[in-house]
């Protein structure tokens, strides 16, 4: 029985697809069989982030219409054989895809360990379409007032679904700014939103530039995502220490350098 986890946020541009792709990669590197389903119908990018956009032959709509089997639509990652992507609709009328259709596709993925559902931004029909297939949720937030306000609304909406867990992924955390008291910390955010933290991901120019096999930029990001994956697998709430790069003499110098 697959664990069906929706990656959502409310606000756009906070890193849902990036978190989905990197989490999927981490889970697969640990041996789990993972399918990432791009439920961002119409504005899909998961295939691009995975570097698989040229391998799309069939999409989710073809599966729904019965034009192909689900195994034919899945694109297997070259670097992680147990990782697959089910691409979103490439074009046409996505209004024809409802929650029931997505759910029927997700239900056919039971032999996998994890189905990660990349949710579109907003709280309209696309949100409900993605969430109604899930049994767990990860809410991706940035440490900004606008992102957290939207996340609060999303968490309220998620609580009306029958989800076994709702956890936060605080993305783009700048440890130097938290240390200097210029930015809200993940602990502040968790307390205000009354939601556990599933992961903390540091701000990184490598992540913004990465795709495909180059995902998971530096050791720091790789470790942060591995903690997130471990938390997801084992139900833990271990937090990546975003202050670690700024400890010690070299860390203090780095802190000074980031200020100016």
């Amino acid at each position, binding site marked *: 029985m697959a664990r069906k986890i929706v990656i959502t946020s409310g606000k756009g541009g906070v890193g849902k697809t990036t978190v989905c792709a990197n989490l999927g990669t981490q889970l697969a590197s640990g041996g789990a069989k993972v399918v990432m389903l791009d439920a961002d119908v119409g504005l899909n990018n998961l295939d691009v982030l995975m570097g698989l956009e040229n391998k799309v032959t069939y999409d989710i709509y073809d599966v729904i219409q019965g034009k192909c089997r689900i195994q034919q639509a899945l694109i297997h990652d070259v670097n992680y054989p147990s990782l697959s992507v089910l691409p979103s609709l490439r074009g046409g009328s996505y209004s024809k895809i409802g929650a029931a259709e997505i759910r029927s596709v997700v239900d056919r993925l039971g032999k996998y360990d994890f189905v990660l559902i990349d949710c579109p931004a907003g709280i309209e029909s696309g949100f409900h379409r993605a969430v109604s297939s899930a049994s767990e949720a990860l809410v991706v937030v940035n440490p900004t007032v606008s992102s957290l306000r939207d996340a609060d609304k999303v968490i309220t909406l998620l609580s009306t679904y029958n989800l076994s867990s709702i956890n936060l992924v605080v993305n783009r955390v700048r440890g130097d700014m938290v240390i200097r*008291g210029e930015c*809200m910390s993940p602990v502040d955010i968790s307390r*205000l939103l009354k939601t556990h933290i599933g992961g903390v991901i540091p701000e990184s120019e490598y992540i913004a530039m990465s795709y495909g096999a180059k995902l998971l930029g530096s050791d720091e990001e790789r470790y942060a995502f591995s903690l997130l994956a471990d938390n997801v697998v084992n139900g833990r709430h271990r937090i990546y220490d975003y202050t670690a790069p700024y400890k010690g003499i070299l860390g203090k110098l780095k802190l000074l350098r980031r200020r100016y």
Partner: protein
Amino acid sequence: MRGRIENLSRLKTVLLHDKLLLPNNFEEVLKSEISSLLDNYMSVRRDTVDINISVNQDGEYEIVVKAYADRLKNTPIVI
């Protein structure tokens, strides 16, 4: 650049404000259901039932129900 304390304060204010925007008819529906529940046990004057919902500084809803009843009903209570 806004600091941590200022951002926290702004966020708290925004969240409290959002939480006070209850869905349409929410209080009416709640009042009706609570009146019906109370009516099982006492002769409640429905026009006196009042519900006040506010949000405290911790972001929790505070619900105060006020109602007047003339007498208890002879309802067997099973605990």
